[in-house]
């Protein structure tokens, strides 16, 4: 079955948040499964860049343990950023985004579904892989757990912030660099607290305060950013 030609309007005329979410999530996940290359590219990029650092800065165990969490977080940031165009830009280019705005479901439902699918295809694989990379950097078990927990809480925030930024730049000149200028500064707080969680654990303190702040940030982002993403998509559709 051709995914792009799947009926966008559901059988029932009344749209709902849940149905829109489920439809967009299933569609984008199906696209990700049918083009596994893109998802694997993000993961390969993550592993490759994280492996370059020990070659560049020297392989002393103390140094690697010290920089490990930060390097893995920066790699996660870049990988999340590089997979952003898949969320709205390709649908905008071929006109399917315009068709989706005509669907009876509320826009916040299906945009949230797309964001969730982006996280499943980029954030979740990175979170699952991070303990392996952490082992390359010689991190101990508790630090690995703190790192994975921080990534689990932080990468959805990256997907949400990135969704707002990529929706704002739809149809803009100088796409990639402009998106970097908008998204990366907004990612900074997530990076600070995410890397801080693992570093606190590694230096003998507890990661709990950092994880609490990341969790609070996630709740704020889940409540505040989907409406902003919708507003940005509407601006792009004008």
């Amino acid at each position: 079955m051709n995914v792009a030609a799947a009926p966008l309007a559901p059988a029932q005329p009344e749209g709902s948040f849940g149905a829109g979410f489920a439809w967009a999530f299933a569609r984008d996940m199906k696209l990700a499964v049918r083009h596994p290359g893109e998802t694997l590219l993000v993961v390969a990029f993550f592993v490759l860049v994280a492996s370059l650092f020990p070659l560049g800065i020297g392989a002393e165990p103390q140094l690697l343990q010290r920089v490990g969490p930060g390097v893995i977080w920066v790699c996660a940031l870049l990988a999340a950023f590089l997979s952003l165009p898949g969320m709205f830009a390709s649908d905008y280019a071929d006109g399917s985004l315009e068709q989706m705005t005509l669907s009876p479901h509320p826009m916040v439902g299906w945009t949230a579904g797309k964001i969730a699918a982006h996280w499943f295809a980029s954030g979740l694989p990175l979170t699952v892989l991070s303990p392996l990379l952490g082992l390359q950097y010689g991190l101990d078990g508790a630090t690995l757990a703190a790192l994975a927990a921080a990534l689990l809480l932080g990468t959805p925030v990256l997907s949400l912030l990135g969704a707002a930024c990529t929706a704002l730049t739809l149809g803009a000149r100088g796409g990639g660099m402009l998106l970097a200028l908008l998204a990366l500064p907004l990612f900074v707080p997530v990076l600070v607290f995410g890397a801080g969680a693992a570093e606190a654990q590694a230096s003998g303190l507890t990661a709990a305060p950092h994880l609490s702040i990341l969790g609070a940030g996630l709740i704020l982002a889940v409540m505040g950013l989907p409406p902003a993403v919708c507003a940005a998509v509407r601006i792009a559709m004008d």
Partner: protein
Amino acid sequence: MKIAWFYFASPSTFYRLAGWLAPWFFVLAAILGAAGLYVGLFVAPTDAQQGEVYRIIFVHVPASWMSMFIYFVMACYGAVSLTFNTRLAAMMARALAPTGAMFTFVALWTGSFWGRPTWGTYWVWDARITSELVLLFLYFGFIALANAFEDPRRGDRAAALLALIGLVNLPIIYFSVVWWNTLHQGSSVKFTGTTMQVEMLWGMLLVALSFWMYSIGASLTRVRAIILEREGRTHWARSLAT
């Protein structure tokens, strides 16, 4: 009496008002700035701990205040332009951004020159300095996004929304010295009183007022150029040239 609230919301009438007001704000900025620098450099006493080097405060603190205040005003204009779909508010937001970016840069620059003799380093990655740097990138992102579209109205709306999203950074900057235990000193001026000498406070407030007046004058001058760019084809704008 009926007040015409929206008389100056039209670009053509505001163009004339801005042209009439801008020189007065520049004059006020010059007078207040001269007075503030005189108080700061000649009247205010030498600081007990830092010596003469503290006098950079008379530029550093007002510039930091303005960098945050201008972002707030810019986001407010962005909110007005999004909710009421007004052209002039979006143009004002665009006109404010370069001045705000300039003050953010001045705050970072003077801060690093103040940090060198007192902390022994030009730059530390503490919370306030990092969040102020993020503010500078937010200004750059706003300017870049506003100019990235063929249709200027599209750029207006996208940039206004970005300004509103970036608003979360302001409380982080403002409270960073309270929330984190950092090298950057806490604020000496609070709403409940001050720990400063009266002359020092007056010098700082005068320079801050001067920067404020300069920002109004500069953004009014810039908004006139933006209005002419956008409305260049209209009858009233063409009649200016003849």
